[in-house]
């Protein structure tokens, strides 16, 4: 699966429009993921996962920053996320299926906050982008 020029352009434009809301979107993505897919909470036994948790907000900020970084270096996502990829392989070892769940929730957050942004074309490009990010983060697993 390869990101076309149109995909890259769509993704950059989408993150441009999301702008300063990225952190908020990151936090809500995690909140929704924990609510919709409770099994994802197993990776955060050390977190307070109650609504409004500062830890979830903080972690959402990190997740969003990584997505923004990937979008800003969309021609070399594996380079941009190389350290994160190492971290996930060696330490975090989040099962690969969970990246799709996070991606689904991110798209839901975009849809709820900014439905006009999520045209079918942009939806397709973002979905591909999120897949690509998941692939990079699990690339060194074995």
């Amino acid at each position, binding site marked *: 699966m390869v990101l076309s020029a149109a995909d890259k352009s769509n993704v950059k434009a989408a993150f441009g429009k999301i702008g300063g809301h990225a952190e908020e979107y990151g936090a809500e993505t995690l*909140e*929704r993921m924990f*609510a*919709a*897919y409770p099994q994802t909470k197993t990776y955060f036994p050390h977190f307070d996962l109650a609504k409004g948790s500062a830890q979830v907000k903080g972690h959402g900020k990190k997740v969003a920053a990584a997505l923004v970084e990937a979008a800003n270096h969309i021609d070399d996502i594996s380079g941009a996320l190389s350290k994160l990829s190492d971290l996930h392989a060696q330490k975090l070892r989040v099962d690969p299926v969970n990246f799709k769940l996070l991606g*689904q*929730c991110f*798209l*839901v957050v975009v*849809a*709820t*906050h900014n*439905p006009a942004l*999520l*045209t*079918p*074309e942009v*939806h*397709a490009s973002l*979905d591909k982008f999120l897949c690509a990010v998941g692939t990079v983060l699990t690339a060194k697993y074995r």
Partner: protein
Amino acid sequence: MVHWTAEEKQLIASVWGKVSVEECGAEALARLLIVYPWTQRFFSNFGNLSSPTAIIGNPKVRAHGKKVLTSFGEAVKNLDNIKGTYSKLSELHCEKLHVDPENFRLLGDILVIVLAAHFGRDFTPACQFAWQKLVGVVAHALAHKYH
């Protein structure tokens, strides 16, 4: 049998009550064909699917999307017996239509996104949980009679 809490049933019913089956059905199917283009393999007789614009405007896509979501309504009406409700449809999808059940999961996720876009903040995390559960149960029921 799947267990639904009273809250889940209420969240499902309240969303469903406000859904335009024709609009959401058409949009969900169109997005499936656009976001996951390999799903077009089942619709070679639908005419022009050559671009997102063509897919969105395609009357066969719209009609079929409406049909699919109308059928989804049967699950909403029969939450306590979704497997039974879809028994014949499951056989049809296996024996006649030859649809990989993975496609039901893909469509379910797309439907959740369409609902999210439609309802905005009203599509709360609790709401999303109930609907992700429902689309999962529907997908499972449609795959149940596969052999």
